[in-house]
């Protein structure tokens, strides 16, 4: 393929692709994200392609392999287009029936369609399934139509149109104004207005500026970012090129978490394709704008998600955080002004430029615009990737989309914001999800983790779990974080072993406040939150451990052994 040297080349390419698109009665789309692969999607793909070939149907029926469709609990699953029929979870043995009955005779197989576990109602179509119905999949909806190996699929889904518009119809300042007017805020945790951040970086005088995509996604229990990169890598790349144009950067870096090998592979492939057709490199689409992208694989350190550590890591050093200011926008990568955004933040940019700030800002709440993707996990019935407009309530996400708690248990709390976030018990279920409401309720949005907990979760044990994590991941530079997190952890260990004293609670609170106040970076500043939050909402549970040497959830091994055995068994149900 020739390089695109003019915006009209892009339009012509898209038209050509649309024209050449094979006409098919039906197309089977297999979800092949991490959960899909873990659940056996490869065997399903293999069976499909074998049987379609055996029946001589390769021409009549399409087979597409895409990234995650979001419904992780029901993997491996397929969607049959154009109707949008949803089948899953599937075994390779199901494939002959699907081909013979559904693909050839248009018959729905009742045993394979989704049945609501509560009402037993069957839903054939993806769009009707309660898990999807309340979602607004602006960023993830195209996943069923995009084979991430093929840039052509992204082009057909209006890909790189926003870039063309930005480069040829807008000045850099206009792009920043548009992003600012959209109300987009950073999806990586702090919720800082993206347009403002870009403006700060642009305002710095410098011989060069850099942009970075933070794909370190270290919060345990969250996987939105790697899913975006795996399922639709070009939308992140397009967002970055637009951002680079607005900010005036000629180079960018995507820093991908080591434990996300599929994402790394897909985004590298996408980058190479974009280079090949002239969407990266010199004179993009024939303009005077040059930009190229590097991809860096992380090396397994949570603190790398923090922006100053991330920069140290890209530079090849230990990922140790440093005092801010100066902020990366003033002095970042190799001392140059640097703009860092999260994967999902970048992914929103093409949408905003294509549809306009006015359209975008109508979605969400007054202060939090657009949609947010959550990893809805833990003790939830319908776990998966969920994209909802800001302002959706926790109850809608957990009950309507998530189908409530697994195994007939009772809801206890939901954890949001990862290791720096907090817990929200039942009285917060009607809270609208937006940056400010969550902070007001004592938690944070974080990057979008939503870990649902039931009565079999011990909150003291979970606080210990988080402190174990942060004390291991502390980069060790500042004392409050390095030593304080360890001290808090050790007290919690004692309590879970039945060796706690009542004074421990006051000491925990004091230590927690100190670590929060005195730590150098967000890791230490956020680390005590799970402890403070559990102390606030579940103090009684701590006291049970301390005074009565009892773990009400039956989790803490050394306490109440008979309860423990039963609870563990039930847990695995």
């Amino acid at each position: 393929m020739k390089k695109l040297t003019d915006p009209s080349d892009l339009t012509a390419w898209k038209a050509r692709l649309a024209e050449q698109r094979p006409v098919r009665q039906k197309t089977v789309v297999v979800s092949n994200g991490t959960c899909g692969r873990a659940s056996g999607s490869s065997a399903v793909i293999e069976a499909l392609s074998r049987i379609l070939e055996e029946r001589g149907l390769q021409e009549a029926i399409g087979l597409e392999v895409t990234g995650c469709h979001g419904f992780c609990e029901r993997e491996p699953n397929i969607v049959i287009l154009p109707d949008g029929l949803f089948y899953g979870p599937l075994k390779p043995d199901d494939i002959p029936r699907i081909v013979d009955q559904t693909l050839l005779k248009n018959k729905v197989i009742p045993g394979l369609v989704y049945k609501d576990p509560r009402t037993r109602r069957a839903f054939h179509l993806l769009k009707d399934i309660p898990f999807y119905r309340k979602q607004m999949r602006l960023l993830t909806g195209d996943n069923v139509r995009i084979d991430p190996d093929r840039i052509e699929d992204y082009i057909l889904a209006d890909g790189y149109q926003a870039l063309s518009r930005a480069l040829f119809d807008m000045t850099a300042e206009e792009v920043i104004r548009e992003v600012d007017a959209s109300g987009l805020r950073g999806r990586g945790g702090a919720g800082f207005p993206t347009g403002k951040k870009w403006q700060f970086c642009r305002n710095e005088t410098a011989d060069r500026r850099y942009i970075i995509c933070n794909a370190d996604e270290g919060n345990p229990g969250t996987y939105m970012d790697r899913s975006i990169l795996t399922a639709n890598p070009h939308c992140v790349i397009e967002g970055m090129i637009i951002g680079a144009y607005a900010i005036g950067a000629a180079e960018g870096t995507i820093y991908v978490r080591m434990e996300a090998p599929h994402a790394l592979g897909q985004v590298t492939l996408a980058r190479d394709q974009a280079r090949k057709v002239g969407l990266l490199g010199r004179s993009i689409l024939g303009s005077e704008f040059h930009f190229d992208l590097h991809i860096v694989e992380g090396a397994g350190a949570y603190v790398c998600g923090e922006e100053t550590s991330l920069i140290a890591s890209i530079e090849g050093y230990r990922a140790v955080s440093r005092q801010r200011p100066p902020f990366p926008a003033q002095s970042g990568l190799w001392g140059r002004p640097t703009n860092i955004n999260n994967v999902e933040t970048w992914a929103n940019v093409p949408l905003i430029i294509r549809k306009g700030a006015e359209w975008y800002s109508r979605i969400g709440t007054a202060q939090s615009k657009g949609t947010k993707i959550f990893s809805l996990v833990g003790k939830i019935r319908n776990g998966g990737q969920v994209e909802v407009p800001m302002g959706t309530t926790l109850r809608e996400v957990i009950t309507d989309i998530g189908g409530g708690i697994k195994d007939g248990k009772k809801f206890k709390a939901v954890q949001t914001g990862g290791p720096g976030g907090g817990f929200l018990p039942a009285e917060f279920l009607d809270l609208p999800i937006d940056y400010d409401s969550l902070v007001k309720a004592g938690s944070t949005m974080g990057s979008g983790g939503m870990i649902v907990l039931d009565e079999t979760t011990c909150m003291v044990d979970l606080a210990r779990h988080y402190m174990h994590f942060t004390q291991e991941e502390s980069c060790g530079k500042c004392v409050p974080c390095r030593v304080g997190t360890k001290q808090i952890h050790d007290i919690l260990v004692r309590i879970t072993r039945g060796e706690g004293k009542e004074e421990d609670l006051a000491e925990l609170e004091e230590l927690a406040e100190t670590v929060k106040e005195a730590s150098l970076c967000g890791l230490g500043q956020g680390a005590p939150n799970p402890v403070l939050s559990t102390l606030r909402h579940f103090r009684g549970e701590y006291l049970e451990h301390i005074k009565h040497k009892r773990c009400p959830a039956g989790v803490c091994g050394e306490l109440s052994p008979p309860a423990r055995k039963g609870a563990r068994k039930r847990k695995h149900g």
Partner: protein
Amino acid sequence: MDELLKEFGREQKDLIHILHKVQSEYGCIPAPAVPRIAEHLNITPNEVYGVLTFYKAFRLQPPGKYTVTVCQGTSCHVRGGAAVFAEVKKQLGIGAGETTADRMFSLETVNCFGCCAIGPTVVVNGRYHSQVRVADVGPLLARYRSRP
């Protein structure tokens, strides 16, 4: 080693890329590689050690035939991951970061594999196993052990 280093630049920023490459070639960062990398980048071996010991990705000892990585992330934890991890430790008789005497298994932990909705997750040499229960651990390890 010289061949491998030739592919890379000679700046500090190349260090982590080099370490990843060395580890994927040799299974670990062999001690004699460290001064060679240091020389290539014109830094001290200590600086190389400083970086490689900071990151969990790198190991100085070669792993066993199978690396069993158990997710310790929050979602897996509340779904029974702690008990699964305890069972793996018991069955292998080693702790995290260790290798069995017959060099068959190494045990590692990770803080999330990204399939949290279907945890607890255990990955063996890159192959994902989801919804692992305590009772599955024995058969799972036995299957790998008996592979030719």
